[in-house]
């Protein structure tokens, strides 16, 4: 049953990738990361803050033996994103990058034009690029053509918790893609994560739904189970949807008791 995820030339046992943003404490982050079963976690790059009280997520990630995936959160242009990716490679010694190029700070939707440019440059520079994208199948196609290691369409805006606003687009992206499709952003609760997998996604990346839940570790457990549930349901081949009912008990042999 446990078919591994092939991503970036490696095999992964977990199909849940965790962001580390939004936790109220490192202790809550640790409990949630452990409960999630995730093997890959994202971090961002920011200016060093000598006054910072909180410990470093990096130390935690390393202690837990997790694989670090730096992101380019906060970049608005291809140029910034490419530079941030290179800095991350320098800082963490990894050519992997979750590529984010944001279009505005209200929706945090990616800018598809800048995103494609940045993806092309980073792939040429040897990066393993996991691009956070909108749910437009054409952009997904261009990102795959650019050599990205996956496409990561959003379900709904980052942190919105609305789940998957447009399942049709996710379905179209899954149909057309030869690289893994990872649903990134918008997950609010476990059924959203299960739905993503049922639509055929190969994995789910989420942060706020766990880190900002009342009980992050419990929600991380929920997400771990939901991703497995959705994956199994996809593999199991679901029944079709009907307008009318279909009896689950045979009519034949019904006694006369009226």
């Amino acid at each position, binding site marked *: 049953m446990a078919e591994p995820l092939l991503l970036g030339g490696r095999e992964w046992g977990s199909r849940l990738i965790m*962001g*580390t*943003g*939004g*936790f109220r404490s490192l202790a809550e*982050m640790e409990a949630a990361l452990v409960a999630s079963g995730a093997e890959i976690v*994202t*971090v*961002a*790059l*920011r*200016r*060093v803050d*000598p006054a910072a009280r909180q410990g*470093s*997520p*990096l130390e935690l990630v390393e202690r837990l033996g997790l694989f*670090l995936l*730096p*992101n380019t*959160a906060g970049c608005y242009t291809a140029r910034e994103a490419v*530079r941030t990716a*290179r*800095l*991350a490679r*320098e*800082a*963490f*010694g990894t050519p992997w990058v*979750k590529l*984010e190029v944001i279009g505005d700070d209200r929706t945090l939707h990616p800018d598809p034009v800048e995103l494609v440019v940045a993806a092309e440059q980073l792939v040429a520079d040897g990066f393993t690029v996991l691009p956070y994208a909108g749910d437009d199948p054409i952009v997904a196609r261009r990102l795959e053509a650019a050599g990205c290691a996956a496409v990561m369409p959003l379900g709904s805006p*980052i942190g919105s918790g609305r789940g998957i606003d447009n399942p049709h687009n996710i379905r179209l992206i899954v149909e057309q893609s030869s690289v893994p499709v990872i649903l990134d952003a918008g997950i609010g609760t476990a059924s959203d994560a299960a739905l993503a997998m049922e639509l055929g996604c190969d994995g789910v990346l989420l*942060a706020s739904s766990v880190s900002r839940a009342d009980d992050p570790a419990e929600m991380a457990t929920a997400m771990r189970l939901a991703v497995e549930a959705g994956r199994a349901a996809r593999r199991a081949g679901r029944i079709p949807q009907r307008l009318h009912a279909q009896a689950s008990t045979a009519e034949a042999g019904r006694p006369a008791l009226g």
Partner: protein
Amino acid sequence: MTVLVNGEPRLLEPGTTVEALVRTLVEEPERGVAVALDREVLPRRAWGETTLRDGQEIEVLQAVAGG
């Protein structure tokens, strides 16, 4: 001389290297820290030999929780 360090102007002794500056900000910069000098990446191995000049911008970055 004045160098823009993480967006704030800072007075430094002439001849200060990037390595020296970084160590004033981070205790153990061996891992998880990256530097951009005038918006271009400065590889770790070049920190010791790179002397800062007046008016330069330097960004010293590390991992934070995110995304």
